[in-house]
């Protein structure tokens, strides 16, 4: 019991260390570091609150998305629906919930800085389905921004990009592709259900 607690605390501290170092590397100034690090830390804390609520059992993908996007749900001063969440829902194991929460946090902060959430009229549609045509069923989760300003070229080496296209898919045995389309940024994640890391709800 105590061993398990020590393990969890040490892993969490190491995760925070990793978040701090990655935020430090990609920040242009002390203020930028502070803002990015604190936002990521609060996101981790929000996800932990959700997991604590389930006594560290599985949580729904929709709950993770809503929790992570809550700070961005209203346009600056304007109450309006910024997100449309449709489709199938999934149960996520705690570590899968944590990494997907971080992915949605990176997508949302990027959208708030440069994409659809940087203007009052922009929206994001998040949809999920199960693709049963593949050899094994795959959860397909799509993030699509609309109504944002013209896209700037992405920083392919940034932390968010590497987490989304490389780190998260490796942990969940899937793939994720960021597409910078004229209509706005899209992120398509394909995560096989065979890994047991997410299960249709």
């Amino acid at each position, binding site marked *: 019991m105590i*061993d398990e607690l*020590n*393990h*969890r*605390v*040490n*892993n969490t*501290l*190491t*995760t925070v*260390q*990793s*978040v701090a*170092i*990655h935020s430090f*590397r990609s920040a242009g100034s002390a203020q930028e570091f502070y803002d990015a690090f604190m936002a990521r830390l609060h996101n981790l804390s929000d996800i932990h609150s959700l997991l604590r609520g389930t006594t560290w059992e599985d949580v729904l993908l929709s709950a993770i998305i809503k929790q992570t996007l809550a700070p961005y749900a209203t346009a600056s001063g304007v109450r309006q629906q910024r997100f449309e969440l449709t489709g199938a829902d999934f149960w996520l194991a705690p*570590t899968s919930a944590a*990494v997907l929460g*971080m992915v949605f946090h990176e997508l949302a902060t990027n959208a708030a800085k440069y994409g659809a959430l940087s203007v009052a009229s922009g929206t994001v549609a998040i949809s999920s389905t199960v693709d049963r045509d593949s050899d094994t069923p795959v959860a397909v989760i799509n993030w699509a921004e609309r109504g944002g300003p013209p896209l700037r070229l992405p920083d392919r080496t940034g932390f968010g990009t*590497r*987490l989304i296209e490389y*780190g*998260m898919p*490796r*942990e969940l*045995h899937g793939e994720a592709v960021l597409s910078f389309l004229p209509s706005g940024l899209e992120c398509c994640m394909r995560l096989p259900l065979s890994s047991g890391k997410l299960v249709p709800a």
Partner: protein
Amino acid sequence: MSSSLPGQLSGVRILIVEDETMIAMLLEGMLLELGCVVAGVAVSVATALEMVGGLAVHADCALLDVNLGGEAAFPVAAALCERQVPFAFVTGYGRSAIAQQYSGAPVLQKPFKREDLLALIGSIVRG
């Protein structure tokens, strides 16, 4: 961050066995700064065994998380012993969680500093 460390382990090939994304990314970043080559990252016992057993990956040294999504990493340690690839455990549990037959292997306690990683790998690859 000190600037005297980078590149000290130039070209040393490391296999990372770690299931948590942020911790794997932390290790990768630090190892690259030290000049190492990340030979592969395995997130489960099965993928690690594939990488080690199939000789798909040549590594001078492996870093093993002890608990991989609820599975103990000791079968990976056994496969590494068979291939004579030295390894160290990287764990939040402490030494008590290491199976008896691997109690001689070095242990890096999470959270760790880059200096600790440098000293650990340096001692392994230099014998």
